[in-house]
C-alpha cells in the first residue's frame, strides 16, 4: 500500500510557540484515521501542515508524494480540508459557493450540485452564506470538501454543529469514502462516534503523535 504521508521530527511554530514539537507520523493510503487529544495538542496545526497551509519549521515531511520542505502547494488540489471556518463567501449563495469551490479546484460544477443534494442543502441552494445557520454552514463546508473529490480528506471536528441527521449523513459519506480506498484523517473530540468509523487512532499530545490503536 503506498505511503500517503510521512513526517519526521516535524516542528511547526505558531508565532514562537511550537504547536508541533518533533512529530513523527507514517500513514499508508486508505482508511480512516482518528487524531485524538486535548485542546491545544496540535491536531489542527497537524491538519493545516498536511494541507500545506503552514510551513515546516524543521524536520521533514511528505504528503501524497510531495516534499513539504520544497513544495507545499502542488498536492493541494488532491486533498480537501474542513477546518473551523467554512472557507466560503458571505455574499455568495450556497450553490455559488459550491460551484466556485469545485471549479477553483479544477472539478466540474455539476459535482457541486450533487454534493449539495447529498448534504441536504438543496432547499437552501439560493440562500446567501451569511444567512445560513451554524449547522447549515457546517454542511456547506463539508459539501465543498467532498465536491473536490479528494484523495486525502482532512476533517477538523467535522461533527461539530451538525444535527442528528447531518451527523448520520456525514458518517454514511465517510464510510463510502473509506470503501473507495481514499484516505481520511479526522481530528475530533467526539471519540465514541469517530472511533466507530476509524481504522486507527493516534493520540496527539504536546505536539507529538502516539499510535494507540490499529484495526
Amino acid at each position, binding site marked *: 500500500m503506498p505511503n500517503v504521508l510521512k513526517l519526521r521530527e516535524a516542528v511547526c511554530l505558531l508565532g514562537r510557540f511550537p504547536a508541533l514539537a518533533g512529530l513523527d507520523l507514517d500513514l499508508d493510503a486508505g482508511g480512516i484515521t482518528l487524531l485524538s487529544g486535548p485542546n491545544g495538542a496540535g491536531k489542527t496545526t497537524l491538519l493545516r501542515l498536511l494541507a500545506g497551509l503552514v510551513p515546516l519549521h524543521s524536520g521533514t515531511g511528505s504528503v501524497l508524494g510531495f516534499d513539504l520542505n520544497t513544495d507545499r*502547494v502542488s498536492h493541494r*488540489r488532491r*486533498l480537501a480540508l474542513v477546518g473551523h*471556518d467554512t*472557507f466560503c463567501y*458571505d455574499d455568495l449563495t450556497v450553490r455559488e459557493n459550491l460551484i*466556485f469551490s469545485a*471549479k*477553483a479546484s479544477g472539478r466540474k460544477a455539476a459535482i457541486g450540485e450533487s454534493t449539495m443534494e447529498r448534504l441536504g442543502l438543496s432547499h437552501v441552494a439560493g440562500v446567501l452564506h451569511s444567512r445560513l445557520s451554524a449547522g447549515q454552514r457546517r454542511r456547506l463546508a463539508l459539501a*465543498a470538501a467532498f465536491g473536490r473529490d479528494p484523495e486525502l480528506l482532512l476533517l477538523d471536528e467535522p461533527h461539530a454543529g451538525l444535527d442528528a441527521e447531518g451527523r448520520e449523513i456525514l458518517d454514511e459519506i465517510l464510510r463510502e469514502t473509506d470503501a473507495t480506498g481514499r484516505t481520511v484523517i479526522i481530528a475530533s473530540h467526539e471519540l465514541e462516534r469517530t472511533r466507530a468509523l476509524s481504522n486507527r487512532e493516534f493520540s496527539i499530545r504536546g505536539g507529538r503523535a502516539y499510535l494507540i490503536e490499529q484495526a
Partner: protein
Amino acid sequence: MNAFSEIKLIAGKDLRIEMRSRILLSQVLPFGAIVVLLFAFALDPDRGILARVAPGLFWITVLLAALLAIGRAFSIEQQHGARDGLRLAGLDGSSVFIGKAIAIAVQLAILEAVLGLTVVVLYGVEVHGVVVLLATASAATIGLAAAGTLYGVLAAGLRARETLLPLLLLPVLAPVMLGATRAFEDGLEGVPGNAWPWVALLTVFALLYTGVGMLAFGPLWEDT
C-alpha cells in the same frame, strides 16, 4: 484549468460579490461624491479655482476611493477563512493576482466615470481631448489596480491592515497621481500633444506593477 479560466473565475467571483453587497454603490461612490463636494465647499466655486484644479482634485478623490475598493477586495478573503480556501484550491498566484486586479479595475472604471461626470457638472469643467483623457484614465486605472492588488495582499496578512494599506500604498501611487493629473490638465487645456509623455509614464507604471505583481503575488499570498 488554464490560466485564462482561473483569471475569469476569480474576477467573476469578486465582481459578483461586489454586485451582491453593493459596497461600491452604497459606500465607495458616495464617499467619492462627498469628497468632491467638500473640495467645492473648501475652494469656493465663484473664484474659478475649481475648474483649474479639477484634474488634481479628481485624481486625489479617485485615489482615496480606490483605497476603499482595494481594502474591500482583500477583506472578503479574510472572512470565514476564504483565503485559505482559495489557497487550498491550488490556483496559480499570478492568475489570482490578475483576476483580483481586473475586478478592482472594473470597479475603479465605474468610479472614475461617475466621479468624472460629477466633477464636470459640479466644477463647471469644459471637456476637451476625450481620447487622451480616456487613454490616461485607462493606463492610470490599470496601474492603480495592479499596485493596489500587490500592496493589498501585502497588508492583508497584517493585524493593522486597514491603517497600513494607505500608508504603504499612497506613496507608491504618487507617480500615478502626478502623471494622470498632468495628462488631464493638458487634455482639458486643449494641448493633448503635451499629455502623451505622461500617458507613457502611466503605461510604464502599469506594466511594471503588473509584471512585479504576477511574480510577487504568489509568495506574498502564501506567506503574509
